[in-house]
């Protein structure tokens, strides 16, 4: 692979442009725009032909791993295959050209899809109300914790501002609690990976707003104390928040509503297979039980007789409000809808079963290679946690080294150094759409790397070797900040 792709700015030639894309110049149109409002210096944007632009960004795309090209055993991210039909049918011209403020009378087809998606998500999670609006998992968390706060305040219970979070939780959980004006109480997990019940009992009280739990947890195990946790938290007057990051593991097997969670978010870009797009867009729909239903964000799709319409703050006067200008990532929701309709109820159960089968198979094979499980006596859920603590001590290689070396074998790295409490860990989630052959090839690569750790350690420590770049200097990136291509008028205009 070519070692460097020039930036688009280096491909630019003054006077060149994709002129077929431009409207006619209309200088007369500007007569009513006084000079003081006008731009004096043009923005420094590329000046390139259409073919220049297509080649440049196509070549950049080839410098990426992706699900279409690589296996991503990325724990807690559920990088499954994104069926092409979901994209094609969400991008029908009528859906793409619909203005968000067009009247509902003119969008009954779209609203029917969204309404049915709400109903299916309620059914599969055991919740009574769903809002599709949050634009990512973290925004779903924000909506959920905001509703918990609104609930307590509506009851005059103003002291409840503490959110309990197990130490293994995603970073978004404590960050969300802070966004919602709460304080965070972290509690430990026990040696088997379950929440430490004694610590939980000590943590809850009249200041407890709620607990945020992922189940199966980010340790790759089902939280076996869930019934007792529910009693403790509800008994103390707090509510239970379900982080849906790992919903793929239990689809059609056990429902958050049946575990008596009060509020959940679902990562539609994980469980329901909408594409990650290089870091978004996601969709973080929220579900609630009856007690939180009045506080759901707006808008929500409602149905009056046979007609669909948007419900807003006039319908839900206690709503926590709008989380976006319009109605969230509608196009992502359509993709999730297509996927869910293709699965059906039976397909959902098969998803959870095969995701769990793949994880337990890979877990067994890797243990047989001599890797250490963080929780060796536990059943893997749809993911599992390996610790390389021993290899780090004996051979001075890190989880990061192994992750980087895997890239050379054509495998995206597993999630590394998360959860933070398990040293030198790899969190591995194969997903149900990967074949046994792919898993076996991954095992073979790990086997090679374990051999290299003993016999050719530098090869691992200096990996990757076959990618467009070698390991990057993150310290330099943070200290000598270079965030824009130099020589742009941006710097000039600020200086001038």
């Amino acid at each position, binding site marked *: 692979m070519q070692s460097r792709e020039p930036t688009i700015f280096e491909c630019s030639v003054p006077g060149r442009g994709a002129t077929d894309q431009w409207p006619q110049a209309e200088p007369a149109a500007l007569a009513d725009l006084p000079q003081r409002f006008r731009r004096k210096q043009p923005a420094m944007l590329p000046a390139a032909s259409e073919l220049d632009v297509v080649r440049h960004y196509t070549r950049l795309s080839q410098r990426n791993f992706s699900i279409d090209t690589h296996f991503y055993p990325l724990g807690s991210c559920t990088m499954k295959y994104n069926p092409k039909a979901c994209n094609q049918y969400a991008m029908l011209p009528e859906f793409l050209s619909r203005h968000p403020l067009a009247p509902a009378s003119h969008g009954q087809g779209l609203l029917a899809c969204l309404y049915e998606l709400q109903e299916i998500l309620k059914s599969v999670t055991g919740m009574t109300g769903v809002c599709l609006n949050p634009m990512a998992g973290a925004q779903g968390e924000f909506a959920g914790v905001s509703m918990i706060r609104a609930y307590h305040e509506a009851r005059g219970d103003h002291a409840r501002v503490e959110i309990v979070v197990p130490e293994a939780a995603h970073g978004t959980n404590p960050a969300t609690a802070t966004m919602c004006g709460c304080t965070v109480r972290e509690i430990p997990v026990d040696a088997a990976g379950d929440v430490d019940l004694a610590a939980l009992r000590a943590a809850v009280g009249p200041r407890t707003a709620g607990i945020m739990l992922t189940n199966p947890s980010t340790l790759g195990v089902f939280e076996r104390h869930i019934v007792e946790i529910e009693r403790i938290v509800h008994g103390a007057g707090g509510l239970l928040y379900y982080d849906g990051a790992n919903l793929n593991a239990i689809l059609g097997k056990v429902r958050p509503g049946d575990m008596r969670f009060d509020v959940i978010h679902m990562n539609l870009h994980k469980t329901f297979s909408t*594409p990650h797009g290089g870091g978004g867009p996601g969709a973080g729909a929220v579900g609630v039980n009856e007690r939180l239903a009045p506080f759901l964000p707006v808008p929500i799709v409602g149905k009056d007789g046979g007609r669909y319409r948007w419900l807003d703050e006039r319908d839900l006067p206690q709503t926590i409000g709008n989380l976006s200008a319009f109605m969230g990532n509608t196009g992502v929701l359509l993709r999730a809808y297509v996927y869910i309709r293709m699965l059906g109820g039976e397909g959902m159960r098969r998803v959870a079963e095969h995701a769990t089968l793949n994880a337990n198979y890979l877990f067994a094979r890797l243990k047989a290679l001599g890797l250490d499980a963080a929780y060796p006596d536990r059943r893997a859920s749809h993911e599992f946690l390996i610790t390389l603590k021993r290899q780090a001590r004996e051979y001075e290689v890190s989880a990061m080294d192994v992750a980087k070396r895997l890239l050379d074998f054509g495998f995206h790295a597993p999630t590394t150094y998360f959860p933070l409490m398990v040293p030198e860990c790899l969190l591995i989630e194969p997903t149900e759409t990967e074949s046994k052959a792919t898993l076996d090839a991954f095992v073979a690569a790990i086997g090679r790397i374990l051999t290299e750790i003993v016999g050719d350690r530098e090869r691992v420590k200096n990996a990757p070797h076959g990618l467009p770049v070698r390991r990057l200097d993150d310290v330099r990136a943070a200290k000598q900040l270079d965030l824009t291509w130099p020589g742009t008028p941006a710097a000039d205009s600020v200086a001038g």
Partner: protein
Amino acid sequence: MAFIPHTPAEVREMLDVIGAADVEALFDEIPPDLRAGAPAGMPEALNEMQIGRLMRERAAADGTTLGFIGAGAYEHHIPAAVWAVATRGEFYTSYTPYQAEASQGTLQLLYEYQTMIASLTGMEVANASLYDGASALAEACLMAVRANRKSSSRRLLMPATVNPRYRRTAHAITTRQGLSFEALPYDAHGGILATDALDAHAGADPTALVIQQPNFFGRLEEVDTLTDWAHAHGMLVIAVVNPTSLGLLAPPGVWGERGADIVVGEGQPLGVPLSAGGPYFGFMTTRREFVRSMPGRIVGRTLDAGGHEGYTLTLQAREQHIRRAKATSNICTNQGLLVTAATIYLSLMGAEGLARTAAASHARTGELLNALTRLPGVRAAFPGPFFHEAVLRLDRPVAPLLEALVREGILGGFDLADDYPELGPALLVCATETKTSADIGRYQTALGRLVRDRHAKP
């Protein structure tokens, strides 16, 4: 249709390796009492041919319209190359670029995007995007509170000329952290902030002033005066701008003596289809001195172990996966795919194409205003400079007219009755470069018929 490749023989083989009798055994740690039966009311699976038919039927039922609504989402020409390249699997199905060596394509693209959006807004640094324009404003308000060391308050000045949906979103997202917004009224005749009445609002140590340009009515605010006034009173300036307009209008980086401090906006006009409201992306740019207060992903250029150039996520110590409860925001993803589209769009348009798009949109809106204000009972609400969007006042309620227009396949504009009842019957209209004189004529004819039909009625 669960996209599962396993053969029954493979499943058996895998269970043997695990040492489990059957797949059900793999769920043995879930308390049996909690186990669900089949979820009720779940529809049967459809194959691709069947779901394709269903979706095409629903799309066809909705049809398409001739649209004259803006109000925060704008229909512009999107070059075919934009989505042809953005939906390549290598962009479309890749993950957040944490593993930099396996994500150089996305990372370099984001670096190029940061350069373009910083230059377009006249600022020094940019992040890799936020969810949408409204939530970006909410994040900008939180950022201003962190960044403004001259003010200890959590109060911000929020003009009534800022998009009402942005104001509602900013309130919903920031209220739990104690931010409050003081509404600034607009001049009823001009439709812009009255600069001579500002001093009454400077008293209680506000930390920032929000300025939308063009404002929600399409009018151009006196941004230089407003920026200097805010700075003179120790406030930061948060600019909310339309990126297309910056092809022609002065970027926030040069407003007043010192320029705006934080710039946000809706990226949708840059190659992203209307899509019923999303996915879009919010952009955010700022001064270099505030970069560590900025939320969201940021990409930097650096060197690899061999001394060669490469790109990586940087300043991650601000973010939730490192800082947890002390992070600048809980935001995790950006809107990577939409930024991919916008970067390709900006590369194709260049400064000249963007300026022409802005000028043509402004010209069509001017033509639309001329056409509609010739009708009886229709007049322009606010005199003075505007850009590519404007308010009409009517002599009768707007909602029934819009409903009648929809029946003719025309989206006539955005009814301001809910958000600005003081205006009386008022309609916000917009025509972009995608509209022809014939389209405008069609709207004029249809509205003319309606206002004349009913003109005789009391």
